[in-house]
């Protein structure tokens, strides 16, 4: 539930390009130039390699330690890289041009692959917006999402997506490579090389499958990856009279996301920033006290709405969250009281974050109160919304829960950011007191003096309390968000990925991804299709079920035999090149079928225990 582009938009686009139902690129099938497809496949492999290279940051020691000592997913990342390098070697050997094509490809599959490349490049660019370089050229985090992106959780999910795409591409590419085209312009070597590259994509898939079998990845990994937004604040929105609850929830979430973004920026800013003023601090504290108050009202109404069969423990969880919101209000009031005694050297400047905390107070108030014109200045004694007005249908409960959840996370982030800023400003001597406020023991001939340490410490303690109690709201709402499948449940997954989750996972979060892949609709061509015997029977026009079943059994038996035999070979025995294995179309079909089976042991057909045959320089797509 965000108005910003997310990584999921681009990974879904990549799948869309490969979906046989997508006809914009032309009908799927075996038509097209193998040379052109090889060039497009090399571009896909190149960008996939970049993703896998990025993962070296996540798994420390991935480059330096022996593979046998690495955990399952770190090992899979290495094997994925080796598979991509090995696949690229075959395509490079055919002098495939790596530059982006000047004109759109003629072959439908090449166009599909170019679409995948474009989606993957844009998706990676989106992830990279969360990183920058510092003055020394070192990689630097530019948002709170940067920590999530480099977490093992998201890395696992990314590997699973690359594996799923590889599997789909391998099936479509091999289909074209092995198609018999009378009078076709492509020579057999190009087709064999294309098939060999596809086989390495299957190897990549099998490696990731193996990691998943050893350390199953939960469904929430993929959801978290797909929810990563571009690192840019969503556009500012203000509520309008008569906004329905759905629009109010969206506005609240958008404003909470903007505030988290601004809070990160503020915390990163130099301690001499002019936005750091006591005026800003007061506005943040007052608006957050109001927002916490509104959150308490909202959560109590939502608890009343969910106090009926079908919602399980949700009502009790929301009531606990309302209690935590009351404590948070008290904590922010404590911050405001502590600010009564201090000043800063910057007068009257209001930071962007401070200005927008008032927006959040307004959005949360519009949700909580019945008055459609509510603002913090509307006046006393505003009636809360009726429970059935807040969420007339059960489907609206997750949206309101998500809004309250996002607000609590924004409050936590703001408390931390203010705390960090004040600590830095105090060290720079910018936190002051008026000499009028000091006792007569002080004889200072200036209107301001540096704040006594005790006052700064008291202020920082109040911010710590505000952050702590805001986290308690989040911890209390998280189970309700999980149980109602609120869009904000990815916040819980993000916290868990960073190792400071709240120990709660909804029932669905314990599920693991079927076959180790992200929850994408299955692409029929990517599935383990019929083997060569069954295909031959079908081409003969055989339709008897018992014969087709027997054919499928023979195909399975041959795959198993080949895989078993490959695994019994001496580890030191050098495997033949994929080109050698693919010398005849019949043999290539049998090997493809074994590799496409998804059996993790199938990698032994191609994978050497030593390094890949040759590491090609990374071309620019």
């Amino acid at each position, binding site marked *: 539930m965000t108005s910003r582009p997310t990584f999921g938009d681009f990974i879904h686009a990549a799948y869309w390009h490969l979906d046989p139902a997508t006809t914009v690129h032309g009908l799927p099938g075996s038509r097209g130039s193998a040379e052109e497809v090889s060039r497009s496949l090399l571009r896909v492999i190149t960008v996939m390699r970049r993703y896998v290279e990025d993962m070296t940051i996540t798994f420390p020691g991935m480059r330096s330690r022996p593979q046998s000592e690495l955990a399952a997913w770190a090992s899979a990342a290495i094997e994925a890289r080796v598979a991509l390098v090995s696949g690229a070697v075959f395509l490079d050997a055919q002098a495939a041009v790596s530059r982006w094509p000047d004109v759109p490809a003629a072959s439908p599959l090449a166009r599909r692959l170019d679409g995948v490349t474009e989606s993957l490049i844009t998706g990676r660019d989106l992830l990279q917006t969360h990183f920058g370089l510092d003055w020394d050229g070192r990689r630097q985090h530019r948002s709170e999402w940067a920590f999530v992106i480099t977490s093992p959780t998201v890395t696992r999910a990314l590997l699973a997506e690359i594996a799923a795409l590889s599997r789909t591409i391998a099936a479509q590419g091999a289909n074209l490579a092995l198609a018999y085209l009378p009078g076709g312009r492509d020579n057999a070597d190009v087709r064999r090389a294309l098939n060999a590259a596809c086989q390495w994509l299957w190897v990549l898939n099998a490696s990731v499958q193996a990691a998943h079998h050893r350390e199953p990845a939960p469904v929430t990994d993929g959801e978290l990856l797909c929810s990563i937004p571009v690192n840019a604040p969503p556009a500012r929105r203000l509520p309008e009279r008569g906004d329905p609850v759905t629009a109010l929830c969206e506005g609240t979430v958008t404003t909470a996301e903007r505030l988290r973004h601004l809070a990160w920026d503020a915390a990163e800013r130099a301690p001499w920033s002019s936005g750091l003023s006591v005026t800003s601090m007061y506005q943040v504290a007052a608006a957050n006290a109001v927002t916490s108050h509104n959150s308490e009202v909202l959560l109590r109404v939502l608890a009343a709405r969910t106090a009926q069969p079908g919602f399980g423990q949700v009502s009790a969880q929301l009531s606990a969250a309302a209690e935590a919101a009351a404590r948070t209000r008290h904590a922010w009031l404590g911050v405001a009281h502590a600010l*009564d005694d201090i000043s800063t050297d910057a*007068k009257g400047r209001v930071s962007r974050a401070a200005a927008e905390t008032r927006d959040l107070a307004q959005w949360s108030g519009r949700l909580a109160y019945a008055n459609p014109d509510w603002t913090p200045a509307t006046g006393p004694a505003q009636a809360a919304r009726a429970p059935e007005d807040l969420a007339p249908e059960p489907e609206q409960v997750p949206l309101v829960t998500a809004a309250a959840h996002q607000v609590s996370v924004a409050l936590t982030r703001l408390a931390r950011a203010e705390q960090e800023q004040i600590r830095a400003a105090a060290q720079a001597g910018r936190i002051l007191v008026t000499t009028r406020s000091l006792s007569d023991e002080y004889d200072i001939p200036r209107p301001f003096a540096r704040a006594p340490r005790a006052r700064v410490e008291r202020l920082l303690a109040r911010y710590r309390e505000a952050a702590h109690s805001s986290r308690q709201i989040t911890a209390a709402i998280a189970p309700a968000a999980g149980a109602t499948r609120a869009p904000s449940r990815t916040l819980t997954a993000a916290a868990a990925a960073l190792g400071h989750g709240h120990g709660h996972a909804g029932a669905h979060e314990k599920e693991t991804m079927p076959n180790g892949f992200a929850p994408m609709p299955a692409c029929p061509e990517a599935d383990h299709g019929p083997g060569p015997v069954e295909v031959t029977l079908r081409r003969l026009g055989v339709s008897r079920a018992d014969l087709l079943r027997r054919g499928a059994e023979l195909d399975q038996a041959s795959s198993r035999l080949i895989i078993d035999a490959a695994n019994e070979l001496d580890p030191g025995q050098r495997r033949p090149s994929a080109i050698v294995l693919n010398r005849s179309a019949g043999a290539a079909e049998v090997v493809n079928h074994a590799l496409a089976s998804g059996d993790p042991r199938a990698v032994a057909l191609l994978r050497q225990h030593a390094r890949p045959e040759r590491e090609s320089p990374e071309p620019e797509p």
Partner: protein
Amino acid sequence: MTSIHQMHERLRSADGIEAVLDAAHDAFEGLLSIIRAHEDPADGLFIPLVMAAASAAEGRNAITFAPSLPPRRLHPATGVAELGDTNITVGLAALSELLATRLVDAARDAPYPSDQAACRAAARCARDIRALLIGTGP
């Protein structure tokens, strides 16, 4: 302890920029202490009072940047202000209205631009407090 009536009187009788700034500073502090004593989440006035407190603090801080504010109080500090029998909304709205009026006048008569700017900023805060309390706030 200073009553809200005494703050009214000091503001009304303050003569000259230094005295007006001194009285206004103490009046904002008085407003702040009264509001702090009445911030009750169970009360319907809670949100207007929280926002009004922020404006009172901002008004006081604006005045502290006025060069003509005496470095020492002209009257001894008396701790927490007292509302007496006055209704809180009526009492604080009336005091903030008077504050706004005196500060606007002071801004017009002040010799230094920094004094003028401080008085104008503080007057705006006083008007905000009044609007918040009577329900027509910003």
